[in-house]
């Protein structure tokens, strides 16, 4: 690997991180706008930049859309007083927000954004690091996120954050089991007997060029989505911070940019979660369920749409649209349903979701074995 290659990779990494940060900032805006829409309110519509606000129609439209609100929010987080209470354990108190934020950014490096054929006809994947253990890598790093909640709850040395931390550790550990079991049938499907195994996300998406896994394994997808809600601390499973009984939960004692890290970290986790569900169950960058896009394009004489730059753009746009839909779905659910109680969350995780995931795994394994033998 020469220096130029390394430089390009670093630059690409920075680009991806800034895009993900942008998505996080704007999913905060989306949360506020969508909740306003659901609740019959207006949402943020005042924040503006002096130059852009002067543009006749567009500036006004962008302001009404609240497009500059994330800048103001970020600025506010930066310039507020950063209070570190006297009673906290300082090292862990400072460490916790970092841990909340970093795993989400690390996991994005193995997420593929699209695929296309270059001029020579070789398959190119838009990905930072095509690791062979892609999904395992994501699970491993995402589960580090629980340390952020536990550490912040513990280091705050205060009762409400403590309860939040206890809830977080129990909840996140429980739902990881169901989540892992939900994706196992997918791996059994793509790793046929005798073939060399792979957990790569690219491989998973390529296996869905025709039928998405949500169509062939709907139960796995359902269990995965529910577990994902619990893993990202979204309502109805937002036990660690449920504000009606724990005030702010684990981040009660945090202020300024440290709170901002928790806040953006939650949305970064949500974004990665939306990417993963899109890739594993909803066909990644394949636009049509049930049809191979490249074949369809070839048959209708639009083959140039599936190759080169247009192919890359369409693949990326498809992927982005699906991710945005899932982000919207997360927000939609949050503002519609009430919150579970802590013991109910645990009971759902262990007594409903886990048996369901195991049963689903057995049924899928038997089904796949039968297909292998008789078809």
């Amino acid at each position, binding site marked *: 690997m020469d220096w130029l290659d390394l430089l390009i990779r670093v630059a690409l990494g920075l680009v991806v991180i800034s895009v993900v940060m942008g998505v996080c900032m704007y999913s905060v805006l989306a949360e506020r706008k969508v*909740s306003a829409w659901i*609740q019959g309110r207006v949402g943020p519509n005042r924040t503006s930049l002096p130059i852009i606000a002067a543009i006749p129609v567009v500036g006004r439209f962008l302001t009404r859309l609240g497009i500059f609100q994330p800048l103001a929010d970020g600025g506010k987080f930066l310039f507020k007083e950063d209070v570190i209470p006297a009673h906290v354990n300082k090292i862990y108190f400072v460490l916790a927000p970092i841990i909340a934020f970093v795993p989400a950014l690390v996991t994005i490096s193995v997420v593929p954004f699209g695929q296309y054929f270059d001029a020579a006809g070789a398959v190119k994947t838009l990905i930072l690091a095509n690791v062979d253990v892609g999904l395992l890598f994501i699970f491993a790093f995402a589960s580090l996120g629980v340390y952020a909640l536990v550490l912040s709850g513990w280091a705050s040395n205060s009762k409400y954050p403590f309860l939040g931390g206890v809830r977080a550790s129990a909840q996140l550990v429980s739902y990881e089991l169901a989540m892992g079991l939900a994706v196992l049938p997918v791996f059994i499907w793509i790793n046929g007997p005798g073939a060399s195994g792979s957990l790569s996300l690219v491989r998973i998406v390529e296996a869905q060029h025709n039928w998405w896994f949500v169509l062939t394994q709907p139960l796995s997808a359902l269990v995965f989505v529910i577990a994902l809600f619990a893993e990202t601390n979204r309502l109805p499973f937002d036990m660690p911070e*449920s504000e009606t009984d*724990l*005030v702010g939960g684990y981040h009660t004692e945090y202020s300024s940019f440290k709170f901002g890290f928790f806040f953006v970290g939650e949305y970064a986790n949500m974004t990665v979660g939306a990417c993963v569900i899109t890739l594993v169950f909803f066909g990644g960058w394949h636009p049509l369920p049930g049809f191979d896009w490249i074949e369809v394009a070839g048959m209708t004489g639009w083959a140039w749409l599936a190759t080169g730059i247009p192919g890359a753009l369409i693949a990326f746009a498809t992927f982005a649209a699906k991710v945005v839909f899932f982000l919207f779905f997360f927000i939609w659910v949050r503002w519609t349903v009430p*919150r579970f*109680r802590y013991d109910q969350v645990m009971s759902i995780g262990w007594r409903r979701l886990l048996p369901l995931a195991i049963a689903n795994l057995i049924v899928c394994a038997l089904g796949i074995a039968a297909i292998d033998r008789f078809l």
Partner: protein
Amino acid sequence: MATDYTFPENAARAASAEPAEFETEKLSISMGPSHPATHGVLRLQLELDGETVVKCDPVIGYLHRGDEKIAENMTYNQFVPYTDRLDYLAPLANNVAYALAVERLARLELPPRCQAIRALICEMARVSSHLLGVGVYGMDTGAMTIFLVTFTEREKLYNLFEELTGARFTTSYTRIGGMSRDIPDGWLDRVLKFCEGVLPVIDEVDKLLTRNRIFLDRTEGVGVIPKDVAIAHGLTGANLRASGVAVDMRKDKPYLGYEQYDFDVPVGTKGDCYDRYLVRIEEMRQSVRLIRQIIATFPGGAWYCEDAKRIFAPKKDKILTSMEELIQNFMIVTEGPQMPAGEVYFEAENPKGVLGFFIHSKGGGVPYRLKIRSPSFSSLSVLPKVAVGAMVADLAAILGSLDFVMGECDR
């Protein structure tokens, strides 16, 4: 408030939850006075075993203003604005309850139009209070959107209140012996229009919550108040009726001509949080039914007692043109409405429960002693018993379902 009594089902739950293999330490935690679930300035001193509440002591008095003592130092009319601040979610109903108590002391007979106006605003206040109660209850269980859905309707009610009384929040609409003014032209039609709009919203809340699995999990069997405990603690209003006791002052001791209207009193069976929610939803529908009947039979005539010369101030144009009325107005403003000596206790069915006023008068324009029986205080008194064995998150649901107001509890 003693916590010596434990509920059989709660005790069983507490026993099954805790295997006696290892010693656990209780966590004592203070919930409030500034906490999202405590609706104002209630403080709960909790002792937790894990997430289970072992002991719950409500600490009240953060909003104590000494209303009863204040009443002894001012004339009867001057106390009307203070009643706004009791249950500040239904000030119109408080005004009416207080005015009725004083008028009973003065043995005034209200003209039918005045009674109809008062009954109408009482029912509107009930809808307003229950809309907020149900909305906040939804928010306590995590359903934020319910709150904004109901609050939007409440804004429309406030617009009507503003048009009627000149104020949106603290209305001070009644006077002893009448109202501060007549209803504006076309106002009744706008109230009817509001009624048409509010019923679909109640149905919408019904659709979002009543059969919602998560809401059912959070409220069914939570915070059960059996019939005998509810009676022993003096619970009233929707909280009592949810426990299966069909007591409603509008039916049992009719006032303001409630006996001429046709309405049902919804009653619960189990007395849990879910029943209290259902009772409130149905009471809103019954209130709308009442509002429609009252408007359909709205009487004409005077909207104040014309024969109460020493109690109700005369019309403004008369004061400016006639000597007799000028003196009468002067006496009522400076010395207060003149009451006979005696004692009276009157209780009205307010949105939060039975609001009672006990007045001891030694004659003249100022009460010797005024005692307020506030329903929120009684509702809160049952909390130490209900909360034991519940989880921390249940507390939010229980507090929301009891629908109390600290302004009334602390007085």
